[in-house]
């Protein structure tokens, strides 16, 4: 595999991982907020 293709695959996978990490933090905040209210 050439360097450009490697970078493009890393970019795509990185984008998907970053998206799910952000989503995880969103739900963590929601859960914390819920606990604080209780």
């Amino acid at each position: 595999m050439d360097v450009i293709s490697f970078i493009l695959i890393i970019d795509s996978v990185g984008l998907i991982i970053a998206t799910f990490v952000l989503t995880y933090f969103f739900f963590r905040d929601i859960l914390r907020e819920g606990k604080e209210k209780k």
Partner: protein
Amino acid sequence: MEISMIDAGIIGSYFIMLAIVAFFARKKIHGLTDYFLAGRRLTLPIFVATLVSTWYGGILGVGQYSYFSGLGNWLTQGIFYYIMALLFALFLAHKIRKSNLFTIPDQLEKFYDKKSRFLGSIFNFILVTPAPYILSLGVIFMFLFGVPKWIGIVIVLVILIGYTLYSGFYGVIYTDLLQFIFMMVGVALVVPFAIAKYGGFEFLSANLPETHLQITGGIPTQMILVWGFIAFWTFVDPGFYQRCYAAKDSKIPKKGIMISIGFWILFDICTTFTGMYAFAANKAGHISIKILENGLPQPETYMIFANSVLPPVLMGVFLIGIIATLMSTIDSFTLLGAMNISHDIYKHTFKPKATDKQVMFVTKIGIVITALFGATLALFFSGIISMWYTIGTVCISTLIVPVLGGFFIKTKKPPISGVFSMIAGAIVSTIWMLNGYNNLYYEWPVYWFDIEPMYPGILAALVVYFAIIGISKIKRNQELA
């Protein structure tokens, strides 16, 4: 293009998911600030998700432009915007949040007077009209399901008005999170599958013109500068302001915009290379793309290419990604337009004593008006839509000087400097634009001296703004003497 039943089902379930999210978001609304700004409680992750998805709307145009100019797309539609967003984060974001206001016209009244607010509201309303994005969705529905464009637009309208009206800004931001996930995952899928099917850099370099692999994409320098200037849009983007006002504290906007830039970089690399792969695949005879009279490929280019590399189910996810990119911008713009009508015009111009309940009712009417106005333009005046980007730049040249002047010019500013600089910017850029559209060359407007309307518009606004400030300063000094 024919899509499989399973992909059609995936698209249908996406719309059902939007309705479910909006249903739960509705429960969080207890007052007007909740309806307008989610109670100013946006945390960092949701700030990033809603900003990333809202700011990115012209996905079909990006597909066309990356096909047309290769890496030049990344420079003109990406890099310039990252720089502007970074400047916004560093110098503006915390000031906006600390002001504790609701809209850009609020800001204009704070800096100048009520007339500036009123005039600013009108240009703001034009700037956030969702017409081009509604039209894009109509085109997508027509392409995917073979239904007439108006049916696609009516479907979009019903869904959009339904959940935006029902759940306000809470609905917008929570559905944005869902749209953000689909948008990122859907678009990220295409490039790895394209590499697997057609090959890596060798395939691209064998089938792309040399200019597509240069960062300028063979675009003339003057045109690159124009795109760079258009990116100033960011400084008066109502979506940016709304999210900054809604943040939980004044640190979140700065951090959030910086993280968003990271997402845009990764996302733009995917979209740009998808467009380049589409060009190469078309040249190699794997797919067939029509070229329009203005030299750009057909708007459906992304979908045609993705269909050639993605298996069913993943194609469905990709299509949702494209639809989500548009929907997230349409819902935000519709709410922003409605806030212009209810908050800026109804309450602060005509009925200052209006209660929160009355303002919320007018906002709901405003959502219907903004959505119908956008849909009418998209259905009956699609020719105007191509002008809309230029109309947007006219609004920018009208708003940018008084808004940035208000934040950064510390000298005392006479109230009339706001309204008169807006009038000057609007008149000059509108005349310039109309002249350009009077002299079309292969559907492209030809402007005086080949200069885009935004430049003379901003220049006129600047001259008038500083002339009024200067004259008032001289008068003050004479009075003191």
